[in-house]
């Protein structure tokens, strides 16, 4: 059997039937893109998750589940159930086992981005990825009450530079009707991209947050009780409460001891969580979901392949004359059936190629949205071995299902007479 001839015949035949086959190839392409995309995102999201926070030994917040605490402090998703009193925070600072504390105060937003009230401890101790420090791309960290530092994406989205004046909004959400418009902030620094939720956040001092909420104790600005920035500076801006705190322990062996003591604290109901444990629990929950998703998309690919075979079987009826010519010219039934298998595999390879391109384009297009909405950093990278084997399995599966039309063609062409189809 002449492989080169068979291959060139198969290519010419596919090209001749391209209009009919384009649609099934598209179906197959989409399903492979989906499968590949799910697998790719699995890897990327997991990587992105584990990169979100590092170096922090405990996260302390009001009593709640560890996932909730992790989500609102690290991922800026959801809200705190309660606050921690400032006095409690001060007590924690006195604890000798605790090396450092980064206060976190949430609740406000800037055009849909979370405002994080913190201290100069944040750039000092917060780490992400492999012990990486958030660095400023421009300007410097806040020094004044009304200074603000923007995450990389925030600055990029709203085209901010240092020196710009911004107005924060009360509460979360993209559009807020209560803005702290009497107390605008000045951008003093812009962070370099980190690929973590830090890029999506806005950092101000705890004092700044306190200042803009004077007269807002009931949740809305009460006329006459709000103050101008100048008046605010005169006041004592020590906060009453914060949302949570990142904790660093000097001697790591004491981590569990400190955690237990905080959880059993008599000051107020507190929760201390280990970020690594919470991250892996979060991942375990997500993991079940993404495994199911991978399974489903696998079935979608199988369905598309069956659709492809159905179309090839339908086309076979139109190919009797062509088979008769090839047989009469001396082609063996093996060549005829190989033609069918090769066509099926070629289509699958074409669909895989298109799926890689579509997947790359899709990830390039979706990654800003994923980072924006889910705080997940998904970048383009070369495919890994698992992804390549998933891609390779598609032409292999096509080879298997292609045997169905091939076998039928083989049987048909054995009964083939010269120039006519033998009676059944």
């Amino acid at each position, binding site marked *: 059997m002449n492989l080169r001839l068979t291959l060139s015949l198969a290519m010419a035949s596919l090209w001749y039937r391209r209009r009919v086959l384009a649609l099934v190839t598209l179906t197959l392409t989409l399903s492979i893109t989906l499968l590949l995309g799910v697998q790719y995102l699995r890897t990327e999201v997991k990587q992105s998750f584990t990169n979100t926070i590092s170096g922090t030994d405990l996260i302390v917040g009001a009593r709640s589940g560890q996932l909730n605490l992790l989500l609102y402090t690290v991922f800026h998703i959801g809200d705190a159930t309660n606050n921690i009193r400032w006095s409690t925070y001060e007590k924690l600072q006195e604890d000798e086992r605790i090396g450092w504390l980064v206060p976190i105060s949430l609740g406000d937003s800037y055009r849909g981005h979370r405002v994080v009230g913190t201290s100069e401890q944040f750039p000092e101790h917060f780490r992400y990825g492999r012990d990486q420090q958030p660095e400023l791309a421009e300007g410097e960290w806040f020094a004044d009450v009304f200074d603000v530092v923007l995450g990389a994406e925030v600055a990029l989205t709203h085209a901010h530079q240092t020196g710009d004046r911004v107005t924060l909004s009360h509460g979360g959400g993209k559009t807020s009707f209560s803005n702290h418009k009497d107390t605008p902030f000045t951008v003093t620094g812009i962070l370099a991209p980190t690929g973590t939720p830090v890029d999506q956040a806005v950092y101000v001092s705890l004092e700044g947050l306190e200042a803009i909420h004077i007269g807002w104790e009931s949740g809305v600005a009460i006329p006459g009780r709000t103050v101008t920035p100048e008046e605010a500076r005169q006041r004592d801006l020590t906060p009453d409460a914060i949302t949570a705190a990142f904790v660093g322990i000097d001697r790591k062996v004491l981590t569990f001891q400190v955690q237990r003591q905080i959880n059993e604290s008599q000051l107020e109901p507190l929760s201390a969580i280990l970020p690594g444990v919470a991250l892996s629990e979060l991942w375990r929950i997500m993991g079940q979901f993404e495994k199911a998703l991978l399974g489903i998309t696998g079935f979608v690919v199988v369905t598309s392949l069956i659709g492809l075979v159905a179309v090839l079987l339908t086309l076979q009826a139109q190919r009797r004359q062509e088979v008769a010519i090839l047989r009469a*010219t*001396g082609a063996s039934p093996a060549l005829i059936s190989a033609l069918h298998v090769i066509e099926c595999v070629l289509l699958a390879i074409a669909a895989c190629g298109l799926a890689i391109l579509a997947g790359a384009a899709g990830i390039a297009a979706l990654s800003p949205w994923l980072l924006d909405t889910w705080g997940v950093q998904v970048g383009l990278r070369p495919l890994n071995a698992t992804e390549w084997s998933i891609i390779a399995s598609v032409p292999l599966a096509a080879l298997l299902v292609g045997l169905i039309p091939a076998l039928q063609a083989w049987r048909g062409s054995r009964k083939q007479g010269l*120039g006519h189809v033998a009676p059944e």
Partner: protein
Amino acid sequence: MPDMTGKTDLHKESSVTPESSVTPRQTLRISELTFRWDRTQPGIRYPDVALNSGEHLFLQGPSGSGKSTLLSLLGGLIVPDSGRLELLGTDLAGLTSGQRDRFRADHMGVIFQQFNLVPYLSTLNNVTLPCQLSQKRRARALSSPEAEAKSLLTALGIPQNHWHRRVTTLSVGQQQRVAAARALTGAPELILADEPTSALDSDNRDRFIELLLGLAAEKHSSVVFVSHDSSLAQRFNHQLALEVTP
């Protein structure tokens, strides 16, 4: 058991060759050949035929008389129930189906009534197809399969601007001539033509037969030509008429 009632007779005496003098020069030899498609249908018994190299046979008969079946037998796509069928001194029944395919690729060219060409190949690629399927045909071609195809297409009057076009753009007459070029390429010993002129008008038909027989003579190929049209018969050395089995 069905008896061999397939009644056939020779209109004109063909060259009767004694059984013993089988030489490689003999292209085709049929003796006491019978075939039936299935048990419910009556069998066909074919008259004995012998065809020397370069001689042509005109095969005539109404529908159902077994003309196409004979061509399938000659092509080795089916095997006879009994009797002998020798091509170029080889008994086809003694070959496996794969060997018969090989034999057909190496030694036979085929022309059908219509739809002779692979729709997704160009004119030129349709003509070179036999050379791609058979080393022997390629070896017998001129300098290259393409050169052979071009020379045949020129001889058969297919304009050069049609050579690289898809065959579906050709007229029926042109398609039949391209089919003839494909059958002739690589100078096969035997050309099987199954009513190749039935879709052509009389001018085209006469021109087609003239070209086919002329080029076949050039290549020393024998032509077995099936047709309803008895007016064509006198152009062939041998004629054979089949009748419908009662």
